[in-house]
């Protein structure tokens, strides 16, 4: 008998521990083919965004010049990351011929597509290739997969580099909006009373103002618009939904026994808010952030389309659309960036929806 109870205990002890919340949510998420497809697209876009200069560009990914190894393609992310020696040797951005002429020992690994998002590729810049067509001749062709705009700048290169900007806009502005929203919601929900009164009214005031109008007003005030300022503006106007959700979660969670237990253990309000309550509130807050990324990309697109976005050299999808406004006969200026924005926004929305269904037990029940 004794033997038997022992073996029973062992059996229980060796069973594998039950799953945590996130691995459980992942199991659920994995079962949704559309969600997985969307997640795949998001991952693909992220890879494109990270490796944009290696996919399309006119600067070598890696090259050897006068005995040293350089990565000139990083200059697409930040001007100063391009080695100063190329400026000194008067490359003027044209690498293939200059590398050959100035150092016969040099070698280079080129991006997959030799096209530049910021300027027209000139005649013989790449040995034996004609200059980019412009205006009505700029149909999609062998060298310009998505065609060229009225100045002869390659649309594919713009699209690839625009991915970086689109995702940056999504993540930076939502990172900002998420931080503000969580902070405001947490303070209001945790302290309640008159504090909640103030934060809630503040949220409602910001919410009442139509976002695009507010953004346009801010853009009018801001001097020299850059993509970073656009992100900041989207961020400081887009936090209201997150604040409301966070507040609701905090209102619910501050009543729970484990929060009382944390107080009884001597934890201070900041510790309780951010260490005890926030991790429990994260799943419902993550969902609007995902949706927010999609809407931020959309807002940036609309702003650039209206001409209030970052100034011309920036290759954002919206600014390509904007250039199509005055050249409506060039259909490829509308279709490709439009499809890019559409697919990205759709993908993020589907990921958000999948996340919601995977983490919200009530929604799960309703579907059954």
């Amino acid at each position, binding site marked *: 008998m004794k033997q038997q109870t022992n073996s029973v205990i062992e059996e229980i*002890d060796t069973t594998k*521990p*039950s799953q*945590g*919340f996130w691995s459980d949510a992942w199991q659920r998420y994995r079962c949704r083919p559309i969600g997985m497809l969307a997640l795949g697209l998001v991952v693909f876009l992220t890879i494109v965004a990270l490796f944009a200069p290696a996919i399309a560009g006119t600067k070598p990914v890696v090259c050897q010049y006068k005995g040293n190894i350089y990565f000139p393609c990083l200059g697409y992310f930040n001007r100063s990351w391009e080695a100063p020696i190329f400026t000194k040797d008067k490359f003027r951005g044209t690498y293939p011929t200059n590398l050959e002429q100035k150092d016969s020992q040099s070698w280079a690994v080129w991006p997959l597509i030799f096209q530049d998002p910021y300027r027209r590729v000139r005649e013989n810049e790449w040995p034996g290739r004609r200059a980019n067509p412009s205006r009505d001749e700029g149909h999609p062709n062998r060298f310009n997969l998505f065609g060229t705009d009225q100045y002869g700048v390659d649309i594919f290169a713009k699209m690839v580099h625009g991915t970086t900007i689109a995702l940056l806009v999504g993540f930076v502005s939502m990172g900002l909006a998420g931080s503000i929203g969580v902070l405001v919601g947490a303070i209001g929900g945790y302290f*309640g*009373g008159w504090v909640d009164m103030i934060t809630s009214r503040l949220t409602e005031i910001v919410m009442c103002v139509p976002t695009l109008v507010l953004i346009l007003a801010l853009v009018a005030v801001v001097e020299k618009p850059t993509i970073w300022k656009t992100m900041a503006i989207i961020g400081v106007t887009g936090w209201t939904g997150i604040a409301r959700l966070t507040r609701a979660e905090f209102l619910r969670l501050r009543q*729970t*026994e*484990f929060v*009382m*237990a*944390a*107080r*009884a*253990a*001597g*934890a*201070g309000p900041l*510790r309780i808010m951010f260490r*005890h309550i926030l*991790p*429990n509130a994260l799943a419902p807050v993550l969902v609007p952030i995902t949706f927010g990324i999609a809407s931020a990309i959309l807002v940036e697109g609309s702003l650039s389309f209206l001409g209030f976005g970052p100034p011309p050299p920036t290759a954002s999808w919206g600014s390509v659309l904007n250039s199509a406004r005055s050249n409506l006969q060039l259909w490829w200026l509308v279709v490709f960036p439009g499809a890019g924005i559409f697919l990205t926004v759709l993908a993020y929305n589907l990921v958000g929806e999948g996340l919601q269904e995977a983490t919200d037990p009530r929604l799960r029940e309703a579907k059954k």
Partner: protein
Amino acid sequence: MAALLEIKDLVTAFHTSKGRLPAVDGVSLSIERGQTLGLVGESGCGKSVTAMSTLRLVASPGRIESGSILFTTEGESIDLVSASEKQLRNVRGGRIGMIFQEPMTSLNPVFTIGDQIAEVVQLHRRVTRSEARTRALEMLHLVRVADPEQRLDAYPHQLSGGMRQRVMIAIALACEPDLIIADEPTTALDVTIQAQILDLLGDLRSRLGTAVLLITHDLGVVAETCDSVAVMYAGKIVEQASAAELFRHPLHPYTIGLLQSRPDIDNRDSGPLATIPGMVPPPQDFPSGCRFHPRCSYATVPQCSSEAPLLREVIPGHFVRCHFAEEINL
């Protein structure tokens, strides 16, 4: 030497749309070092609010209106009612540990139990993370959790109710407090686990010399574990004595009623169990006079409904709040 915890005339009231509701109305208690005091009563008579008030954990709209809670430790006395939030944070979890009724929900679901025990240690001691973790492991050993090394990294939902209550005890004891407030620690557990948890508490108490304020509605638990008992009814203490004395000579009709409503294992054929008719009145309609008189079988004279009895020392060390204490004593 002063008592470890001295509660004097504590009044905690809730201010709601129904007006002021005094859930605790002039309670005085004292606990000596290493002693166990049982606080007994039906649901809704103010036991838990008393416990929460002790650590100033009563949530709005509740408020401590008057009284003092003198906590004496290491030769220093602090009045917890007027103490600053910072002083309170040192006392909470550090000098006074608390065990809650619901082990299922009192642990944070997103942290491992090792983290949660270590957290309270880190809050009150200057220790590194690994030292705190070592302490957490020690505590799990102490509260007799099987396989403590593995349980350290388990999440609360992976443990049973009894295990979780052991973890709660470990958290409460991790900083070697002088006092533990256990608010119905066994109510949510089944009977066999209850016994284990009580054994554990009793054992730890005698080993560590920690005083315990045990809040319960279970007189059996009190008889087994407590040195002295206070019986609470409708926000007031109605009887207070040593455990042995109270069970031998209950003097308040309410206590007598409580004792009679327990099954008696030696006398199984005594017919149906006695009950106390009615319910504890909610604070907005406390009756005049003695608050127990509408339910009391001894209340015969008008005095009961007009004049509130005082808590009197009827026998040395035995306090009763009843006009008829002497007659009942005969």
